[in-house]
């Protein structure tokens, strides 16, 4: 239920920089603790495994909309709605380089 993930790239900078590590878990999802501005690691069919910040949650359909921390990132529209089952985990701890 816990995984360590390495951040690659700069689209979450300055919050998360390339080379940083995060500890993620699905527990916050199961406990309905994920909210706007929570940071999730998830699988996108188009882009692979991404790390992004929650911008909106559709609680009825259990869909998440995400964004990066800067303009380099894909837009929320490009990422699309993410199903709860595609979420690897919510960031619990951040280990800066």
């Amino acid at each position, binding site marked *: 239920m816990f*995984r360590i993930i390495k951040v690659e790239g700069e689209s979450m900078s300055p919050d998360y920089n390339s080379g940083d*590590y995060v500890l993620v878990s699905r527990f916050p999802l199961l406990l309905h603790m994920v909210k706007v501005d929570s940071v999730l690691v998830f699988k996108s069919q188009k882009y692979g*495994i*991404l790390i992004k910040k929650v911008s909106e949650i559709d609680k009825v359909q259990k869909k998440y909309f995400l964004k990066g921390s800067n303009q380099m990132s894909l837009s929320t529209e490009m990422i699309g709605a993410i199903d709860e089952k595609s979420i690897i985990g919510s960031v619990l701890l951040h280990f800066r380089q």
Partner: protein
Amino acid sequence: MYQIINFLDKMFHFTAAKAHCDIPCGIYDPITAQIAALTVVRMVDLIDEHHSHSTIQDKEFYNRLVRLITVKEEHSEKVKHEIRIIFGDFIKSEHFEKYPELPLLFHKIMQLGSADKQKSEKSTAVELLDRVNRFAEIFWEIKGIKTKKAKAPYAPNLEFVYPEH
């Protein structure tokens, strides 16, 4: 704590989450891999030199040796990383038709990158640079840019493939 996790990552290879090139930036250049490959050759030379010239194998001897090996290790991995990005993000399947050697060339670079971490052999390091140069040649050809060959202006002064403009 970061150092511990980083050490564990080198052993277990944690999954990476991309926050990179989410917008395809279009900035690709094999020169980073070429410089890293040349650095591997340089480190092999320095390791040989250090080994043959040192008469006393004290802690300073081992300290320098470990530093040289560490840099060789890091740059071998960097070659693999940089080539993997170009191969994965820039090269498209249609390029395989024009350059059927590409998949095997990519695989060979990955293997040589690993071999250069495992040992300290000049011939293996030079072969890695040769293959990366060939990869660079194909890369620039795909982009329609002519290349030239010139010796790197720093030791070990081996040949690089450069774009002409």
